[in-house]
């Protein structure tokens, strides 16, 4: 559904952000796009949606060139940016104006998501609401469009703790086989038990693109009590309960993916991790 082929991109000719980057994303997944600050996550999302043009390469979405911004593509794509634009409108006016652009928009779903976010009593102009409340409206609207491609840039920024839980619950319930969801964040804990594929971006390169099943198949995440047991660890962190470690899953153990630990392991031990996943 999204295919980036040999993308070279930079905001100036001297400084290239992506060099010959290729990436293929297929429907039926919730991808977590992870990377440090300034890794190029937002730029990559903008290239996918046709908001930034690469100097070289082909960004293709739904079989069409992304930078052409065809309405046929845009009406099936919804992008929730980090920096939101909220017009001076009441909620009903906002829905009245924006919903008709999206043929799949479902008003009942929108109301349902707004209720879930405890936003059923929004009165007055939406641009006067808090950042978190605006974000909830945008997320609810995005989900109600039933767009085939849903892109969310730091969706949990500005959400309070209960809202983050609600967000995860809603996202887990909406995913379907025909939809491609990409969530970019640097707060990896917020994606816990939500995503089923991970894309890692570092120094303008996609250094990892695998499903979460593939991760837990190749790696094991566990807490060890023995402080001297460090031989096989790819990465370790001290915690109150002992040492949390990431090891190669040689004995086919079952474990629960800890995205933050995985992210740190990948950043600290890139070559070894790549070697494991290329086997």
């Amino acid at each position: 559904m999204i295919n980036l082929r040999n993308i070279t991109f930079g905001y100036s000719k001297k400084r290239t952000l992506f060099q010959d980057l290729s990436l293929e994303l297929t429907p039926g997944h919730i991808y977590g796009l992870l990377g440090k600050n300034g890794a190029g996550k937002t730029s990559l999302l903008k290239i996918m949606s046709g908001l930034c043009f690469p100097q070289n390469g082909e960004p293709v979405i739904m079989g069409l060139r992304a930078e052409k911004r065809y309405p046929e593509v845009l009406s099936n794509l919804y992008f929730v940016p980090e920096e939101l634009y909220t017009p001076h409108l009441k909620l009903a006016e906002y829905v009245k104006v924006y919903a008709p652009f999206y043929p799949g928009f479902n008003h009942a779903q929108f109301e349902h998501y707004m209720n879930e976010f405890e936003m059923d009593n929004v009165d007055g102009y939406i641009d006067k609401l808090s950042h978190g409340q605006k974000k909830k409206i945008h997320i609810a609207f995005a989900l109600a469009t039933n767009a085939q491609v849903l892109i969310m840039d730091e969706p949990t920024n500005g959400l309070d703790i209960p809202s983050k839980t609600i967000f995860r619950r809603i996202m887990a319930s909406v995913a379907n086989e025909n939809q491609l969801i990409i969530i970019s964040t640097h707060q990896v804990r917020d994606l816990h038990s939500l995503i089923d594929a991970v894309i890692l971006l570092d120094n303008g390169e996609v250094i990892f693109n695998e499903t979460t099943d593939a991760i837990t198949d190749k790696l094991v995440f566990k807490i060890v009590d023995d402080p001297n047991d460090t031989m096989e660890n790819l990465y370790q962190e001290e915690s109150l309960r002992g040492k949390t470690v990431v090891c190669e899953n040689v004995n086919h153990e079952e474990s629960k993916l800890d995205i933050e630990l995985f992210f740190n392991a990948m950043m600290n031990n890139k070559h070894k991790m790549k070697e494991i996943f290329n086997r």
Partner: protein
Amino acid sequence: MIQTFSFNRVKLLFTKYFVERWRSDLRDFAMVFAFCAVCGWNYGAANIGVFFVILFTLIAASKTFSMFKNRAHGFDYLLVPVNTLEKTFTGIVLSHIYRILLYFIAFVLGLELGSFLYSFHPSNDTGILNIGKVLAWIPTYWNYILSFFAALSLFVFASVFFRKSAFGKTLLCYFGFALIIVIVTVTIITAMMKNIVMDPSINAWAFTMQDYEFTFKNMTLLGKISTVGSNIFIILFGWVMSFLRLREKEA
């Protein structure tokens, strides 16, 4: 199937504009109306009113794509599922027809009210403004109107080209461009002229050039043709450039 132009999408874009902007447009209308009502006491010399209507329209045109001043707003606009041709078309209709009509109606109604109120003043001998007179100006000044549309299309282009201070920057570019044209024209004519003589038949200066004698009469005709031609060129230039610039706009 890719649809090059959809009236339904254009209709949605117009709806979006009017629902989002009707309050600010109403405010602008009230401002022009109030200003012209104040000028209406002496509508016979109300050129100042016309001047301000033109100014307001140009400022409004420079705001046609003002959403790009704000990153988040520009982002939102670029992702509205409407193609560039439809967005440009909507922008042109809003700036060239809707806003002109909006301000013109405010202008006429303002003058009408002002002249009506002033008609009660004992020293008034001009009476109430006749709307027919105002409408009669339009065919008389068509050449000026064409120049106005040319300026308007440049201001629309500027609104998508410049991120900040579109009005001021466009004025600067406009005057700069006009200065260059004047310098080039004067240089060419000077180079072509053999001598300047007084044409006794029309009591005006005539230029005798290398193989053609330019009289005051055909100089005027030439001037008109070049003005109309350059205005049409600028109008088309502004529209086409707005379309191309919008197509390449990034967020």
